[in-house]
């Protein structure tokens, strides 16, 4: 059996290099066919009648006029008379018709009446909530004694609202049946291998009869792991109509019901010795992720393990669709709450925050040495020591400030299977039931494959996005790159071992004496006893070689647990409250990096997404009607290209990181950005703006109140 390791740094042809993503040509030319772009012969278009009320009971429902309209092929009642609807834009009836226009007309022809019921959507005021419960309560050390003994103590209130995933490609799918029990579904999903079982379960057919295909994927961020009720509706309508059906959510539903990140509010007390040593933490936090409550709780205090601490989290129920995993679930909230309170404490201590965090680096767990070097590196890159000033200094209406935050994430590799085939003509391909969300998964797999066989990227093919390929985990929690790189490496090494067996006799050597070097198979250390790859492949005979690989498995190819530090430089116009980002710097570790280019892109993207929720994003639910008032891209504000400032990314590389193996990167770099920007604004204007996003109203309000929440 081969040894499952990564090649030594000096022998790497691809790993760690900057490789442009292989699907770039398809994506930039419009040739990439996303699920939303799939058009099948005879395909019908589906629309959904949604409930306009946050809480209501259906008292009348008549679909007969819709059913009898020309062109309408299926009308499916999802929730019938008597059902109590718990959130706005929940699905009631789905219609499939020969065109979107007809489907739209049919939806309008449905007669429905509701009895309105009281709703609650303003969880910041948790005392008014009809339903809430303690989700977590724990204590470590002796917080009361530490509170009494703390030489400097601050109290603060902080809040971060629910935000939407707002995937560019909405949730949805095209469903097509062959006969009565064979379903093919082109889904916009993060879990190609996981979805067939979900469809099969609801449709009562064997899982093996369901094929899910995701050729390209227009963004998920944690919200696309479910077949969803609209997916089942789509399949059912396709079955009834005996025609393919396309059903994708409208933008308002995409924003309101297809995924959000729970809110978090907290009253925090934190204390330290005069020299800055943290001794005490107490927090009472609450939040909501809709009708299912807060969906877990933020890990408080975040990263910094204050020795004496107590925390309580209350889960509040609101009339809003259930939250979904949003990039690094619960961490951005925890980071914002913690780093804001700690920065406020540093200000009270009259300590420079960088010194304050370095002073407490020992509380940052097993990788505190990495945090220390990341803090130093980040500070160097932004010029912290030269440019930092105490809070609120500066002349004129435009105030500049610096802020920092740090974060952690696990990212243990998921289960992944890969099948590698070596053809007699030397072509090599890999198949995985994985998916590329834009993270570069396909490119990374190709790099590992090419690396292992000593080939160029043009010599290998990667097939993903189809549940008929060997099962691979869903892409969530930064688990993908570790999983697919490991399964691919193992499968490729296993296939190579078989090739070695075939060619060894011809080289007059044993298979275990062979190695790949410079595009050829050779006897170890003996270049004159070698065979080019093509010639070697020709010797495997007419039948291709296949081999599989599985993660987890033996060897040391991946790990979990990463950290990162981010710093922000902002300017705040204190007359208008408008915040502008001058610069964001991210320093991030993630073990062994396969593709430096797409890895950096993940971090750049995370900084931008972080800037977005720091400055603009917020799900605005109307206290009067319960509706999401900004369920559009006009008032659900996202930054444009001119709104994010100068970005700088530094990936931690080198032996210390290399030897850990591959660790995922999707979640961690989005965690700190909001906190770092909030801290920079506090540094600029001299007072804490207690809420994200840092909109002019909140900035001006904080200035007017002088910082008291």
């Amino acid at each position, binding site marked *: 059996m081969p040894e499952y390791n990564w090649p030594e740094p000096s022998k790497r042809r691809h790993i760690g290099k900057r490789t442009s993503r292989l699907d770039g040509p398809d994506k930039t030319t*419009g040739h990439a066919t996303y699920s939303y772009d799939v058009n099948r012969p005879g395909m019908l278009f589906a629309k959904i009648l949604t409930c306009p009320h946050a809480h209501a009971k259906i008292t009348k429902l008549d679909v007969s006029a819709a059913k009898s309209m020309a062109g309408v092929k299926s009308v499916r009642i999802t929730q019938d008379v008597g059902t109590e609807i718990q959130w706005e834009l929940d699905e009631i009836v789905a219609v499939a018709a020969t065109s979107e226009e007809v489907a739209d007309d049919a939806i309008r022809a449905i007669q429905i009446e509701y009895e309105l019921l009281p709703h609650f959507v303003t969880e910041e005021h948790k005392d008014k909530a009809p339903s809430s419960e303690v989700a977590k309560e724990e204590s470590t050390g002796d917080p009361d004694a530490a509170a009494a003994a703390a030489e400097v103590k601050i109290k603060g209130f902080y809040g971060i609202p629910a935000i939407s995933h707002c*995937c560019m490609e909405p949730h949805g799918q095209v469903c097509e049946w062959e006969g009565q029990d064979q379903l093919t579904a082109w889904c916009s999903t993060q879990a190609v291998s996981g979805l067939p079982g979900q469809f099969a379960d609801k449709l009562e057919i064997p899982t093996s009869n369901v094929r899910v295909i995701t050729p390209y994927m227009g963004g998920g961020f944690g919200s696309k792991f479910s077949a969803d009720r609209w997916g089942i509706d789509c399949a059912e309508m396709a079955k009834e109509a005996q025609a393919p059906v396309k059903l994708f959510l409208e933008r308002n539903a995409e924003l309101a019901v297809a995924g959000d990140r729970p809110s978090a509010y907290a009253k925090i007390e934190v204390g330290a010795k005069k020299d800055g040593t943290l001794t005490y933490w107490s927090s009472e936090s609450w939040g909501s992720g809709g009708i299912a409550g807060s969906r877990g709780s933020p890990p408080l205090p975040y990263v910094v393990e204050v020795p004496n601490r107590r925390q309580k989290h209350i889960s509040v129920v609101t009339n809003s669709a259930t939250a979904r995993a949003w990039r690094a679930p619960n961490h951005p909230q925890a980071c914002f709450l913690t780093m804001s309170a700690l920065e406020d404490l540093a200000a009270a201590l009259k300590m420079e925050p960088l010194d304050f965090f370095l002073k407490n680096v020992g509380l940052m767990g097993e990788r505190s040495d990495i945090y220390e070097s990341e803090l130093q590196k980040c500070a160097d890159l932004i010029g912290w020591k030269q440019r930092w000033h105490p809070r609120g200094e500066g002349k004129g209406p435009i105030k500049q400030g610096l802020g920092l935050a740090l974060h952690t994430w696990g990212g243990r590799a998921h289960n992944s299977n890969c099948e590698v085939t070596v053809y007699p003509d030397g072509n090599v391909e890999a198949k995985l039931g994985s998916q590329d969300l834009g993270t*570069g998964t396909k490119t990374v797999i190709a790099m590992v494959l090419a690396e292992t066989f000593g080939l160029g990227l043009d010599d290998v093919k990667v097939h993903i996005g189809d549940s008929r390929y060997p099962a691979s985990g869903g892409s969530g929690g930064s688990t993908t790159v570790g999983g697919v790189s490991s399964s691919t490496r193992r499968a490729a090494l296993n296939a190579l071992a078989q090739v070695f067996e075939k060619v060894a006799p011809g080289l007059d050597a044993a298979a275990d004496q062979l190695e790949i070097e410079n595009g050829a198979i050779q006897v170890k250390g003996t270049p004159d006893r070698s065979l080019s790859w093509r010639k070697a492949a020709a010797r495997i005979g007419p039948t291709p070689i296949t081999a599989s690989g599985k993660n987890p498995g033996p060897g040391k190819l991946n790990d979990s647990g990463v950290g990162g530090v981010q710093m922000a430089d902002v300017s705040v116009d204190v007359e208008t409250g408008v915040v502008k980002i001058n610069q964001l710097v991210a320093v991030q570790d993630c073990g062994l990096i396969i593709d430096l280019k797409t890895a950096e892109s993940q971090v750049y*993207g995370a900084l931008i997404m972080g800037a*977005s929720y720091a400055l603009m994003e917020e799900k605005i639910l109307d206290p009067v009607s319960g509706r999401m008032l900004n369920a559009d891209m006009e008032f659900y504000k996202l930054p444009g*290209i001119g709104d994010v400032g100068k970005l700088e990314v530094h990936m931690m590389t080198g032996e210390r990181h290399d030897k850990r193996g591959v660790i995922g990167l999707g979640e961690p770099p989005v965690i700190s950005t909001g906190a770092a920007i909030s801290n920079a604004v506090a540094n600029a204007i001299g007072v804490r703006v207690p809420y994200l996003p840092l909109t002019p109203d909140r900035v001006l309000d904080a200035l007017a109140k002088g910082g008291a929440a």
Partner: protein
Amino acid sequence: MAKEEMGEQAASDLSRRDFLRGGATGALTTGLIASVGSPAEASSHGKVLGPGAVSAKLKINGKVRAVEVEPRTTLLDALRNRLDVTGAKRVCDRGTCGACTVLLNGKPVYACSVLAIEAQGQDIVTVEGLGSPGELHPLQAAFIANDAQQCGFCTPGFVVACKAFLDGNPDPTLGEIQKGLGGNLCRCGTYAGIGPAVLEAAKALKGGARNA
């Protein structure tokens, strides 16, 4: 303007006028509006079409294609749902995000906010018309080199918007790029690559590379 282009412009003007006179229309339906004079009274030129489907001709990436559309069908939906031209994406569908950007007579527009029937007689260029995987437009090549796409769903609209931007400003600064591309949004956060990509493409286009 080159001779050929003038000829083409004149031809497209003609076909547009023909259409407006009802030359290319299906059955006329009237009478929806009781309080208004009949179309015949209104004008022999201003015929009323619809509300049912009418035949239309759209010139997409240089090819004229016939399509049945209702007056309410947007250009974006006609492209995606009826003509299987899916490069332009439907994201906000309300003229905000730019994912559906196409060129109409060389100008960038949100295809979600244009009716298909009013796009007749005009040159419609989608991202597919700029280049192909085998023959990339310099902008597309620069997007790849600078990793200016992640999930890629906003990318076609961005590429088209960048094309229009460079047509108007062939030698931009990064600041001008950041100000001049405010009509497109990305969720993955690819802006860090887009700025350098546009600068690189500007250089390549000036250097005599294919200027489509």
